[in-house]
């Protein structure tokens, strides 16, 4: 039935096609408009905008990862901020090592905060972070491993629903407390900052900013494709089955815990990658990224955009974060009212999110039919229904 290649399936969905083409176009166009046009040109994109957009895109990837577990598998994780932050810390540690002796204390062996705390040598868990490859490995491995271990325990003993949400929240809260401690060796309260460069390229250069933007946009596109591959597979149908009727799925002989573990781990890895792209663009990572409030906020991006669709969370993350930037600047007191209202409004009135609203889905459905007829005129001439 559904065995056309992935791309062909996506092409038949106007919403996905539009979103992905906008992303890919932006991935090339925005850096070009930033780097090639003189800054007085009307089409010049200022560097700070490039970085801001890049930040939104990492949020979009993060939202995608939450949607994979929540929208498709029904696991409401209130701790995904932790995976994001861990990916960010791994990246941050690499960049800390890159500073070398250019820190305030000029100590080539130790990061500034360790010198400040009178540490004599590098803790073992910082070994290897001088190497970019190793750091990138950790970006996926650390969040993935945490998710795997946590999920192994939680899913095997069938902690579900709100209980699971609460313990994921406890997990990120425990990490928040832990990372606040100076003797953890991750910079305590202040976190990691004052980064200089990646692979020898300065972080503050326009070229680097544009590159990070490009990578972020492509990461979202790739993330979409990976998620799409998963949810379109039989495994994807199993996880939706788990979401809708968990015990029925068990009685069919599926080991629900393995499936959950799989998506939870994949999702954590995606979140970790998002975090690793985020940190160089904002220039700092500190324990507040672990705060439970952050993790819940991700969920609202997904809820508003539309969970259980892969375009929804991307759109939700972009919309909410743009609004956040705008309102925290223009009307700071109003923003929390709006965010709070958004939670209530979207749960009460937009159960399927923006992309699921009738107006939008009708418009795209029309497009889809037109497109489908264009692609496979014969099917429609016979009155058949292509999937």
């Amino acid at each position, binding site marked *: 039935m559904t065995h056309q290649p992935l791309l062909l399936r996506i092409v038949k969905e106007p919403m996905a096609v539009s979103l992905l083409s906008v992303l890919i176009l932006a991935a090339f166009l925005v850096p070009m408009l930033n780097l090639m046009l003189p800054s007085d040109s009307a089409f010049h994109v200022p560097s700070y905008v490039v970085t801001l957009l890049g930040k939104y895109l990492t949020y979009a990837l993060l939202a995608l990862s939450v949607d994979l577990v929540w929208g498709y598998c029904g696991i409401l994780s209130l701790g995904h901020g932790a995976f994001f932050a861990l990916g960010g810390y791994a990246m941050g540690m690499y960049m800390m090592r890159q500073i070398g002796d250019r820190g305030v204390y000029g100590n080539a062996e130790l990061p500034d905060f360790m010198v400040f705390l009178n540490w004599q040598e590098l803790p073992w868990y910082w070994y290897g972070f001088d190497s970019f490859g190793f750091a990138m490995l950790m970006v996926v491995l650390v969040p993935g491993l945490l998710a795997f271990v946590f999920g192994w325990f939680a899913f095997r003993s069938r902690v579900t629903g709100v209980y699971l949400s609460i313990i994921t929240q406890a997990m990120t809260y425990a990490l928040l407390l832990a990372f606040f401690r100076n003797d953890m060796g991750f910079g305590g309260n202040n976190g990691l900052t004052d980064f200089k460069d990646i692979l020898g390229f300065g972080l503050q250069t326009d070229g680097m900013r544009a590159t990070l933007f490009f990578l972020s946009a492509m990461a979202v596109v790739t993330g979409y494709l990976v998620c799409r591959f998963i949810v379109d597979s039989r495994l994807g149908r199993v996880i939706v089955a788990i979401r809708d009727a968990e015990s029925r799925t068990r009685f069919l002989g599926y080991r629900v815990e393995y499936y959950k573990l799989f998506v939870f781990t994949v999702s954590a890895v995606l979140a970790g990658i998002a975090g690793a792209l985020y940190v160089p663009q904002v220039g700092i990572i500190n324990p507040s990224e672990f705060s439970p409030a952050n993790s819940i906020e991700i969920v609202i991006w997904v809820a508003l955009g539309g969970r259980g669709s892969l375009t929804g969370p991307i759109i939700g993350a972009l919309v909410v974060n743009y609004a956040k930037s705008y309102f925290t600047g223009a009307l700071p007191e109003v923003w929390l009212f709006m965010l709070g209202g958004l*939670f209530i409004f979207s749960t009460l009135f937009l159960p399927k999110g923006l992309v699921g609203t009738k107006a939008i889905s009708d418009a795209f459905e029309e497009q889809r039919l037109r497109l489908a007829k264009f692609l496979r005129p014969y099917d429609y001439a016979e009155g058949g229904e292509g999937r």
Partner: protein
Amino acid sequence: MLSKTLAMRWLVVLSVFIGLGFGSSTPAHADEFSDAVQALNADNNTDKAAAIEALSATGDERAATVLSALLNGTLFYRQSDGLVVLSKESGNVTILIDPSTMNEVADVSGSEAKKIRINNKLRGQLKGVLGALTLLSKDADKRQNAADEVFKANDPSMLPVLQKAIARESDPDVKGRMLRAQAAIILEYSEDTAARLKAAQTLGEFTDPDISALLGKIANTSTDPEVKKLAKDMQDSVEGRLAAWSFLGNLFQGVSLGSVLLLAAVGLAITFGVMGVINMAHGEMVMLGAYTTFMVQDVIRTHFPAAFDWSLAIAVPAAFLVTGAVGILVERGIIRWLYGRPLETLLATWGLSLMLQQLIRTLFGPTNQEVGNPSWMSGAIETSTGLVLTYNRIWIIVFSLAVLGMLALVTRKTMFGLQMRAVTQNRAMANSMGIRSGWVDALTFALGSGIAGMAGVALSQIDNVSPNLGQTYIIDSFMVVVFGGVGNLWGTLVGAFSLGIVNKFLEPYAGAVLGKIFVLVGIILFIQKRPRGLFALKGRSVEG
């Protein structure tokens, strides 16, 4: 004339402060006393030290006034003839007083007087001597304090006064403390082995960290093997008792934290346990309760200041009503549309919590509000063993248990409780029996919120009242409910107190933050074993 009365008044105050009525001074000592006072105006500190000792040895009760003036830098001498005088600033005028007669020295202007200077060593001596002098006070409390001061100073020069005081002492409690001070001095400074052994024995009876330290010092440094050994033994026995007391102290801290957790969690146990509703705005209900307390106190302060001690008695029902009403609004407005969708409820109530926080921030500002403790909640029971039980903590423990008890009564014994349980167990059946389940839901939610509000009143007494108050407790209260098991007040009680106690016992070893992390990780692991908590029901009613 005016300045004279002022001076007299000041002296009365001063003498009361020192604990001596100067009216009782004995004229027989007059000359000896004034000589001793004069001797304070010595050229070097050694002479001054001797003079201080001599003055205290007179046993004259005015000596304390003079010595404390010396300590406070208000003892002067007249440059013309070296007469030692007390001085007192009164507005711009400096008044000088002759300590022997306590009369103003009328013909002297302030600039003619020079301060008698002392160094730190003398200051230390003065403190001890003053303490010793107060040992003879008429007021038993003051004598007791003095005995403790002498013990702390542990100065052999005080021994004579101390012995005089012990001979005179009639109050057994005070006498005990004096004996302790004496034993400490003897143990440390005496050369007489027998006396020292006896002193060590006496000290071994007490339960006090300072005594343990002293015994430890002697055990380490003494050259007399007998004394050394006994001091070691005695230290061990003191340490043993101290450990027991510190256990008690930890237990109290734990129970106290537990009672706070219980208060914060019990309302949640109602909404989560009975209705299956995750109320993330529960913490904000607590916060609203605390702000209600603030408002009530504000009104009382401005209109009925005399009734301040009653403010909490008014705030408790007020907070219950305010947050209960908010609860009804929230249930009717939001939650009822989301029954059967617990995850959505969680998100919507989280949104609500953000809005409530911002609302309070807008109305009252982001800073902490000043909420006062009524007099009956301030202060503490303290023992010499280092145990401190503050009254506000004690009252909160009592209050939390009272709230739990009342709640148990409401759910078990009232019509509303019956309907509440009926709706939980079988909504359709309850409806068909004529129970208006919509109202039962609203009232149940109001009850949970109202209890949160009452918790807020209690928390306002021990925590900062700020818009973030609720956030501090929300995760912990969820942990309590999840750990204790849903739908069971017993579980909440046991959950709260065990988490509180475990937390406080971990703290000394791991530190507060790490202790908390251990507890969180412990709960996460515990849920794996018992996904439904400690006291989970096995029945169908809890299956979601």
